[in-house]
């Protein structure tokens, strides 16, 4: 019984957040709605006995990525409200709706095949010894070690890329004009020459 309650509440949160992201005019509101969705998903992870992932989800996604979003919003100042009524591109809205609907229908119909497969949905936890973390760790460092290592390389590349992309170009630096001194009595001194003013 309690599972259904948890599921309903979490699902409601997820859906509300998703709709909130799409329909918020203010990007900051949208980011906060996203956080609500992420929390809901984390709850659902826990309900499916994927505890480690739920923790990682909250820490990485909600904690880092959304914060990054908010940083960029504040940095660029593109937090102006967007006019959701107007759609400059012709036919984009109806077609987008159709595409979304099409994707939904197709996915649902594809998933139908496995609904009746009678997967052991009674038991929430995975089989095998150890806790969820242990099982996950065994899989990551055992079977999926290569992917793991490649992912670390990917992270390095991402960091380098970010630095390169956002680095300042050297020529764009405006240089300060030299000899700005306007004090009377002071003369320009050439390098190496010493002039003594009395």
């Amino acid at each position, binding site marked *: 019984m309690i599972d259904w309650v948890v599921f309903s509440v979490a699902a409601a949160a997820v859906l509300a957040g998703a709709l909130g992201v799409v329909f918020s005019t203010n990007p900051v509101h949208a980011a906060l709605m996203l956080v609500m969705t992420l929390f809901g998903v984390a709850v659902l992870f826990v309900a499916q006995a994927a505890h480690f992932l739920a923790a990682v989800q909250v820490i990485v996604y909600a904690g880092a990525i959304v914060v990054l979003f908010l940083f960029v919003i504040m940095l660029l100042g593109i937090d102006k409200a967007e006019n959701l009524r107007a759609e400059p*591109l012709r036919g984009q809205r109806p*077609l987008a709706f159709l*595409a979304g609907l099409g*994707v939904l229908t*197709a996915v649902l119909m594809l998933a139908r095949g496995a609904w009746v497969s009678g997967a052991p949905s009674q038991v929430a936890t995975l089989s095998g010894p150890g806790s969820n973390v242990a099982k996950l760790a065994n899989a990551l460092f055992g079977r999926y070690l290569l992917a793991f290592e490649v992912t670390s390389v990917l992270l390095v590349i991402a960091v380098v890329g970010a630095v390169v992309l956002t680095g300042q170009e050297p020529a764009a630096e405006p240089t300060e004009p030299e000899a700005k001194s306007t004090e009377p009595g002071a003369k320009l001194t050439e390098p190496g020459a010493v002039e003594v003013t009395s």
Partner: protein
Amino acid sequence: MVEAVWLIPALPLAGFLILAIAGRRLGNPRAGWLATAMMVGSFGATLVVLAGLLGYEGEARSVTQTLFTWVPSGALQVEAGFLVDPLSVTMAMFVTGVGALIHLYSIGYMHSDPNYTKFFVYLNLFAFSMLMLVLSSSFLGTFLGWEGVGACSYFLISFWFEKPTAATAGKKAFVVNRVGDFGFMVAMFLIFASLGSLQYVTVAAGAETLSTVTATAIALLLFVGAAGKSAQLPLYVWLPDAMEGPTPVSALIHAATMVTAGVFLMVRINPILALAPDASMIIAVVGALTALFAATIACAQNDIKKVLAYSTISQLGYMFLAVGSGAYAAAIFHMVTHAFFKALMFLGAGSVIHGLHEEQDMTRMGGLRKWMPVTSGTFLVGWLAIAGVPPFSGFWSKDDILANAFELSPLLWGIGLLTALLTAYYMSRQVFLVFFGGERWRSEPARTSKSKATKTKVAAGHHGGRVPHESPWAMTFPLAFLAVLATLGGLLNLPFPGWTVLEHWLEPVFGENLRHLALSSSTKLGLIAAAVAAALAGIGVAWATFGLRGGRVQGLTPPVLARGWYVDDLYRNLVERPGRALSNFSATVVDQKLIDGVVNGLAASVRAGGERLRVVQSGYVRNYALAIAGGTVGVLVFVLVRSGV
């Protein structure tokens, strides 16, 4: 000695190559002397070969020298080589001899022309082609020379190509020749198909195996080619226009050598002709009709060269009449004497034109006898020869032909006799108008005539005034030489027993195909008398009309004759107009609208398609994202369908 035959065409070829490469450096007049020297050398080589051939006897006088296998293609094996026999040596002798004289003449005639070296380049090339034509051992080799002389004729007729009429005349000559060449080619195909070879020796040997139909077809097709090259009906129309070229060209190509190529070809195939009496008859009839036809037109021409042009067509008709009657030796005899006196008269006409500062209209000449003695003296010799006055050469050769024609058909003989009368008439008219009578060139005002560069020459004072002058020795020496030949040429084949040198010499080439006259002596005498009477009558009428003091100058030139029986106009309406209409149609409708339309339309449609498709590239990221979403839906649906949901 016979092996030296390759030198005969090689020397003019060398002259051509040297002049083509270094001619401009040699300059005027050395280039001309080099070309003439080559021709003289070629003549010398011919004499050497003749001497060698005389060393053989009878049937053995047919030597083939093969250089290499030209076409080694399966069943068709054509050797490149020379056939030395009495016929080819005779042809080579007068081609090189008369050719050398005309080369010499050209040095004087063309000395003030800016394209002096180019002229000799073409002349030597022509000589090479003509010699290949007569000396080759196969039909294909002859055809090579045939096309070569056709091309050189085109080059030389339109030598002064800035003049539109000259350029047009060159094209006309070439195109009309092409019609004839078509016949030649088809005949070659037939010969190969029925006899398996194109070598003369092989064809002559195997000729008896031909059926009458095949032989007739081959003969008639070759005659089509000959009619084109030798200006017979209906392909003669190019020859009068060819007078646009310089006079030495008219003398060499259109009197003495190229136009005789057709006669030579027909004589060459006498074994085939012997099997096709119908073809021979047709040839004789066409020849006779052409002779009469051209003679009538010549009576009404005022241009000094046009008279000679139509006269050439007429005399060629005589030669074909002889060929058709089986009198091959007579045809060759007349060819040789005609080369002498016609070249003489053409060169004389050139001398007159040169002396009168490019005047060509006979009604504006007159009384040149005392101003140009050598020219008129030699021209008179040529006149008497062509008119058929004994003892000049033309009398003997023409009479030979008429006698053979009489034996074939009295009607054809009658036509020939009438032509002889007309020939005497128009030639005499020409002589009286040009060399006798009043000096009409004195009183004529400045003309807007067709003669080229008249005003500039007079204005520049090039010849110091407008009094005619005799030509330099380079021009008068060939005239004198040819006059001697025209006088004595009859000795080649006098119709008395033991004096028929030429006929006896050519015997091995013809064998039994040669017609031997079976007329009684009284008939022969009667024929001779008739011919002489016709000649004198023609001369007399002309003298009475034009020669007497106070005789007429203009007149007796009805338009129908002056315009050549309107044949050119007929061809214009029958051939040129539809051809031009077809060309215009093809150019505008087919090419511009259809083909260009398709090609351009293709490009236009591609562009239009591109314009339409351009809409997709809106540049908006969201549109592209939409496209991706659409594609995703597509893939999912595909998977759905394939997994059988």
